[in-house]
């Protein structure tokens, strides 16, 4: 099953979570063959925006998006697993700079892309300023997400 793991983030504190998950998975020995044969693609994006649609055009049968989220409804490190359709109603400004994951998925759905195969893994974060360090709660959750996704990926 052709699968994509896309870590979304920035170089700043807890917002690096998506990148850390992707980088860690890419180094797992169990996944080496899957990556080498093109069955599994692991990538990172800093501002996917509309480029998310270009990934969707690549006919992946399963897509995992990993990103920091800030809901203020849970403690830092809380892990959310959501289907794409559950997040397309989330707020997100459509501007020349800021086209977030949520409106991009909404646009993808309108354009007829299959978004049923997208699983969104969000990790609650609290720090995202350049002068801050990633929190220990976030680091723990990154390890948990890596472990859980690794268990799924070795079965594809």
């Amino acid at each position, binding site marked *: 099953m052709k699968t994509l793991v896309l870590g979304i983030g920035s170089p700043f504190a807890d917002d690096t979570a998506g990148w850390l998950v992707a980088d860690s998975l890419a180094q797992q020995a169990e996944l080496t063959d899957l990556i080498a044969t093109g069955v599994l693609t692991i990538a990172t994006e800093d501002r996917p925006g*509309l480029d998310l649609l270009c990934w969707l055009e690549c006919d992946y049968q399963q897509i995992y998006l990993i990103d920091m989220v800030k809901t203020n409804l849970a403690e830092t490190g809380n892990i959310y697993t959501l289907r794409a359709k559950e997040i397309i109603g989330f707020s997100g400004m*459509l501007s020349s700079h800021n086209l977030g994951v949520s409106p991009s998925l909404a646009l993808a759905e309108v354009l007829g892309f299959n978004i049923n195969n997208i699983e969104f893994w969000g990790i609650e974060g609290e720090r995202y300023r350049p002068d801050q360090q990633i929190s220990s709660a976030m680091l723990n959750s990154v390890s948990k997400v890596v472990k859980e996704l690794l268990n799924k990926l070795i079965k594809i």
Partner: protein
Amino acid sequence: MSVTKTTKIEVPILARVEGEGALDIEIENNEIKKCELRIYEPPRYFEKFLEGREPNEIIDAVARICGICPLAYQTAAAQAMEQVFGIEISPWAKDMRLLMMLGQWIHSQYLHVHLLAAPDFLGYRSGIEMAKDYPNEVLRGVRLQHLGNDIMKLLGGRSVHPNGVKLGGFWSSPKESTVKAFIPRLEAALKDAKEVIEFVAKLPFPDTTIPFKQVSLRHPTEYPVIASGVITSDGEEFDIADWEHHFKEFHAPQSTALHSTTLDDKPILLGPLPRLNLNFDRLPKHIQDMANATGITFPSNNMFHSVVARAIEGYWAIERALEICQAYTYTDTPSAPEQYAAGSAWAAVEAPRGIQIDKFDFDAQGKATHIRISAPTSQNLPCMEADLRIALKNFGLDRPNHELQLHAEMVVRNYDPCISCSAHFLTLNVVRN
């Protein structure tokens, strides 16, 4: 006894523009009494906190001014520094800086055309709503902006906060195979870009005429992206170093962004339409023919034709990027040697939405002593307000408020303003007793 009828239209947050700004319009007895774009994002003090910093620190930092035009800020800053220090960059580095800027144009112009402007002209509230009826057009926009984004990543290292540019050139050279891989994508994009011109030419344009002085950079031989010459619609031509002899910057009470006008307080217009109007002769003949085939006569003073100008510029940018990629060869010296000297210099580039201007002063150790950074949006703000007065009057001030609001937003979005860019220009004066 006469009765005064006052209508207030307040748009607290302008949608589909970058940053946070508001619009206040007051109409009294069918006359606009107040029309103000309020930029209320907090100032960011870039110019002040970069004083005392080293050149490459500054080049990295100015990328943070704007999420969509970081390379414009980096390129203009590097150009100014290289002038001050007497560093001659190689033809290779000049080509790569142009390619990088073209990537930024391609990304920004096609995103604006398809997802920010077209919904206004076609009567949709958003690009997502428009995509239901125009899926192929929106997908085309996605493809083209993605291409631009990839070119930015090629040379900037990443599209957000790029860090590939340095004093004297670049930190590294892309492999030849990586650059050549863009050739088929750029060739395919030309077909898309031609269709975009045909698509936007058929949009319904409101009839309006702008009377403002138009200003653009002027390149000696080609369409302007990185250049030091300035040209205006009044026939003036001068070097960017003479900018302050023609235009001024000032604070407007309603805005955290500086405003720019002529010295006698007249608005000035920068961006794709003036660029095309004033540099039509710099386009290759076949692109001039494509522009003429739209049925629009350039120079045009209908500001709504900006969307067509963006599409024509996009085609040129793709074609020019293709030429650079075809001629590309790897170099192991992507940067000229660094050297420092005290001095001062101006530099400018054409960002997608207008001229971005820098003036840097350095001491002999290469530390910045004074910095001025002028963003295109802040320079266009008085023009936007004046344009709104004209456009709303033409539209009909007796129309219902919601129609006036939508039209006003369309007029503002037409400038593709980047409010976050513009909101960092307050001068900080501290008096201590």
